């Protein structure tokens, strides 16, 4: 029984980390209908920023989430404003290909700058853990990451629902033409959205660096998890990525216990296809987003 | 007009629920070849939903749709098209990437094989050019839909529907947005289709057009049939005026009519 409880706890914490990784991806897809294949590379960039700060000034990775987020925000804003905006009105696979090209460029740039080594940002406490009765362990590092995922999602919901910028982002996402009529500078708002998403990815990267290892080859894996979590959770709802991440974490944890270890990914993809086939709007998404007819 | 006793399209007790909203409730409707049925009603009365129910673009919650005796109640839209039921869309839906001629050729390619004609691409292209002439778009076959005027875009919608050589044609506000000068030729075209024996139904807001051309008019209000009858009778019915213009106008119209009846006698 303790074994199952341990798996559940670990699954939830892993889910929190996945949610943190996926929330930016879900925002960009939900609002701008752009699938950002280079999202994983942004997460990785966040990890490397945190690593450099740790090596240079010994900054704790969870603290260096802030500088990583700010740096990535700027980079994301520029990428959207001067690159993705050029094709955002095009057919869907145009944005897919543009961001795929961007991923190749970013991953190989990082491979060139930071070599292919498997890195991790050592912290004294990350691997220590809270011990519950029955020797069920809650590792500090993953706990902090999961709590931060919750906090960042709440912050995002607040920004989106309560602030002017947030509402302008949602409005532009709903109907670009109408939003522009009301004086919203769509180009700026889109770049802002992409910047926020990149910042979230950067923060997630720093957390990943603290709790596990990363190398340039992991970018694809982060993007894939973001896909699955965003779709599971459902678009158009700021909580979507959180629900999706937690469900994915649990599916992998329980799957790992009940089935041979290697089937875990197969279970995750099976769940993805089933959700899409029978409930495209996901757990908490809005049908509008699922039925949106792309050009 | 040949008054054939048997209707081509027979709809009984049609209703459609979207979540909590009953868009259409208890709709009975018959379309006869060579007759034009007008459908009017304030916005949100369920007019477009009615058309969608009769073309398979919406599945009825209750009720039945028979076309030529064939039960197409929950059939998919292409089965209606193959059964000879064609329609235009309120917001024009051209195939933007194709030329005007190809837009129409699609209809010719996928209509029912009633006349045994070969449905090859060349045959379809030839049929398309003929249909374009029929609706007054001759010579514009090579333009892209985006290059057409509003009136021409409506003509293209009509041409695409006619390419199916339909026996029933449902027009969804085909006159909306047309200038005065463009409405009359459109009405003449519709009249010629009626004379060809097509069963026609026209959802319209242009009241004077409905008054002049429709054989019969159905008034929908909050998804239900308010009244049916000849255009003149329907337009003077208090309930219709009230539905469109609200309580005050209905009363004022009633007093004005009583006054004129007084003078006449």
């Amino acid at each position, binding site marked *: 029984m303790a074994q199952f409880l341990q798996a559940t706890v670990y699954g939830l914490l892993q889910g929190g980390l996945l949610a943190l990784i996926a929330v930016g991806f879900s925002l960009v897809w939900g609002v701008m209908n752009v699938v950002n294949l280079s999202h994983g590379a942004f997460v990785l960039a966040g990890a490397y920023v945190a690593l450099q700060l740790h090596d240079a000034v010994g900054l704790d990775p969870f603290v260096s989430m802030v500088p990583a987020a700010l740096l990535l925000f700027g980079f994301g804003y520029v990428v959207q404003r001067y690159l993705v905006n050029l*094709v955002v009105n095009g057919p869907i*696979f145009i944005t897919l290909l543009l961001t795929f090209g961007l991923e190749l460029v970013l991953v190989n740039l990082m491979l060139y700058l930071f070599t292919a080594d498997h890195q991790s940002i050592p912290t004294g406490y990350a691997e220590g853990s809270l011990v519950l009765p029955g020797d069920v362990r809650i590792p500090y590092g993953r706990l902090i990451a999961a709590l931060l995922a919750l906090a960042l999602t709440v912050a995002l919901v607040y920004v989106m629902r309560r602030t002017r910028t947030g509402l302008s982002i949602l409005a532009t996402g709903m109907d670009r033409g109408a939003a522009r009529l009301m004086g919203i500078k769509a180009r700026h708002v889109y770049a802002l959205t992409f910047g926020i998403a990149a910042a979230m990815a950067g923060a997630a990267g720093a957390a990943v660096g603290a709790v596990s290892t990363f190398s340039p080859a992991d970018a694809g894996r982060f993007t894939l998890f973001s896909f699955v979590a965003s779709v599971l959770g459902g678009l158009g709802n700021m909580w979507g990525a959180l629900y999706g991440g937690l469900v994915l974490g649990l599916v992998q944890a329980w799957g790992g216990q009940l089935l041979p270890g290697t089937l875990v990914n197969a279970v995750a993809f099976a769940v993805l296809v089933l959700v899409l086939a029978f409930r495209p709007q996901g757990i908490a998404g809005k049908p509008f987003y699922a039925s949106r007819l792309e050009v | 007009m040949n008054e054939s006793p048997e209707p081509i399209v027979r709809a009984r007790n049609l209703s459609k629920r979207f979540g909590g909203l009953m868009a259409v409730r208890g709709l009975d409707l018959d379309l006869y070849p060579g007759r034009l049925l007008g459908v009017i009603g304030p916005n949100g009365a369920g007019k477009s939903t009615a058309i969608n129910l009769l073309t398979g673009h919406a599945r009825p919650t209750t009720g039945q749709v028979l076309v030529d005796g064939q039960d197409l109640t929950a059939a998919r839209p292409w089965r209606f098209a193959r059964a000879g039921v064609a329609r235009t869309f309120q917001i024009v839906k051209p195939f933007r990437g194709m030329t005007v001629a*190809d837009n129409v050729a699609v209809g010719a390619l996928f209509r029912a094989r009633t006349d045994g004609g070969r449905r090859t691409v060349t045959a379809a292209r030839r049929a398309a050019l003929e249909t374009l002439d029929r609706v007054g778009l001759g010579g514009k076959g090579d333009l892209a839909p985006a290059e057409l005027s509003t009136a021409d875009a409506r003509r293209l919608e009509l041409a695409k529907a006619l390419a199916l050589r339909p026996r029933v044609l449902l027009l969804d506000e085909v006159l909306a947005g047309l200038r005065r000068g463009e409405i009359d030729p459109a009405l003449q075209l519709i009249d010629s289709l009626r004379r060809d024996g097509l069963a026609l139904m026209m959802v319209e807001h242009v009241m004077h057009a409905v008054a002049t051309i429709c054989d019969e008019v159905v008034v929908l209000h909050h998804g239900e049939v308010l009244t049916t009858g000849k255009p003149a009778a329907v337009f003077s019915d208090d309930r219709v005026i009230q539905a469109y213009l609200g309580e005050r106008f209905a009363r004022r119209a009633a007093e004005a009519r009583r006054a004129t009846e007084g003078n006449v006698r």
Partner: protein
Amino acid sequence: MSIVDVGQGQEVAGPATPSAPVTAASLRRRTTPWVLLAAGLLFGIGLQPQLYPAQERLVSTVLMFVALATAWNLIGGFAGYASFGQVAFFGLGGYGTALMMVHLNMSFWLAMAASAVVAFLFAALVGAPLLRLKGHYFAIATLGVAEGLREVVTNLPKLTGGGGGITIPTFGPNAPTRWLGNDGFYLLFLFLAVAVVAVAIVVASSRGGYALRAIHQDEDAAAAMGINTTLAKTLAFAGSAALTGAVGSARAFQLQTIYPDRSFDVAITVLMVVMVVLGGSGTVLGPIIGAISVAFASEWLRTNYTDVHIFLLGGMIIVAVVLLPQGFTNYVRDAVRARRFSLLENVRRYRL
């Protein structure tokens, strides 16, 4: 995604007055693609003796991608359903053939045909629920199918050898069909490419082509005009899958040993999409030009800039997508028709 392609050059000519002689123009319009295809085949056969084994192997890979890109174009280009899981059928074809040859000792040719049928049925089965989805959702659902299939293959070690891969016996007593050799595979991929392009030409100029393009532009309007959209989409998806499966089967026989992570590698699908989009999706010529140029470009970059070739490939894709979002063929056709060749204007076309 406009439809005009080699098969329908008629639009490029002057305005056709209704009474224009339709027969001469349409006769030429229908035969031109076949003439070019025959010329391509002859060129391919003529080129072979000039090549070294490695060049031959490279051209075989390019021909493979011409076939894969053209097959993807049937569903992604014509119908506009961007399948991001096309490699599922590529891998299914490969593993289907490997299993049939290893466990059932079936000849390669029979196994290839059977694998294509298996891919067809699998796509039709998977297509039923997924073809109801649109845009990104369809793309990601099919991606999920491909990734899922790879995991399933990895987890059947007794049958497929799992992560350790499976080897098709190609020489010695228990080899059902001897290995075709570099020359043999060059010809096999040449004929496969010609066959798939032929299918594309037939579809492009037939009722099916019209139906798929109509679905791509506006599915509701297409249904209202008598097109059974579900059947058309499923046939296009399953047909494209069968062709992709056959190519996958040939590739597996060529490689002799195949592994799940390489047979179901998402990079193969993305390469197909890059080739079709840059070449010009929704046309017959587009994927061919796209496949040849992208395949040679990535090979040239890999040999000459060994350390940074993927970095440059990424940069090339970004520049190409921004300058030619509608693809080379469509750009040329629009430019010729409108006599406007400026790329800058092209960039503004999809700008926010």
